């Protein structure tokens, strides 16, 4: 089978064999995928052919796994951001704490302002996760987030 024509585009035959599940070696499938990954014309032809083909049904758990993976990734990204913010706060706190010229008023060793910020982080984390879930469900009213 000639998978590519003389201009380097996919032949009709190649696209048919791909969508019909005909014989293709792994290397041939890799070559088709490499071409479809950048060629708009051939991707459009492939998409048109797919529209005429009965599509396969993924296992029912697939959608739930997608949701779980998105949530996990989003939480990871959020945690990274919080860790970076925490590191920045730690630097500032250390600087203020150790600077001899700055006198921090304190009673009994408590720094209520910073302590409050640190305590409220888990709540803010929860709120962001709620927003992520909201986006998944297409909820219009996302509160407290950066929506502009």
């Amino acid at each position, binding site marked *: 089978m000639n998978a*590519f024509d003389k201009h380097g585009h996919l032949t009709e035959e190649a696209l048919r064999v791909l969508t019909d599940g005909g014989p293709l070696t792994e290397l041939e499938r890799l070559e088709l995928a490499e071409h*479809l990954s950048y060629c708009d014309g051939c991707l459009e032809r492939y998409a048109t052919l797919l529209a005429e083909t009965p599509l396969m049904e993924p296992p029912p758990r697939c959608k739930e796994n997608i949701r779980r993976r998105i949530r996990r990734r989003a939480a990871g990204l959020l945690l990274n951001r919080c860790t970076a913010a925490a590191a920045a706060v730690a630097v500032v706190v250390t600087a203020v704490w150790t600077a001899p010229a700055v006198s921090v008023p304190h009673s009994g060793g408590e720094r209520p302002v910073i302590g409050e910020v640190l305590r409220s982080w888990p709540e803010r984390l929860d709120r962001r996760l709620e927003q992520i879930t909201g986006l998944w469900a*297409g909820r219009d009213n996302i509160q407290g987030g950066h929506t502009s």
Partner: protein
Amino acid sequence: MDRRREPSFERLVDQYQRLVYTVCYQMVRDVQTAEDLTQETFLSAYLHLADCPAGYERQWLARIAVNKAKDYLLSAYSRRTVLPGDEEMPPGPPEPSTEETALSRCGEAELRRQILALREPYGSVLRLHLLEERTPEETALALGRPMKTVHTQIARGKRLLREQLKGGADP
């Protein structure tokens, strides 16, 4: 990014998961891998949702799916084929290039004939790169292919050429 205007991602999954799964399966031909690649496709789509051109969700998702399948097939192919090839090569530098080895074995005319006979998508790449001595960048530009793809095709094309020449030179 205005998240309030985004359509529900869940709806996007509902509408296109069969398409994405079918594309992945047609490429890798294994249900378990196809399912995994389907999930990866939607995860990428979610993270880059702002890049999706309005009204082209179908093509956009099909392309991400094709890319995921391509990466999977490429790593599977490299694991199997590149390592044995490397073992055949003599250890230590410097290593003569494919074209030098080929030239010394069969002469320029034969090499030229073999390059011209090389199948697509490698023939056009190696004609420009080896016969017209264009750089990979120039070759990519001339053919309208991404640089990364051209680099892969040059490497794989040379390997095919070497096999072709070996076959011809050692009857």
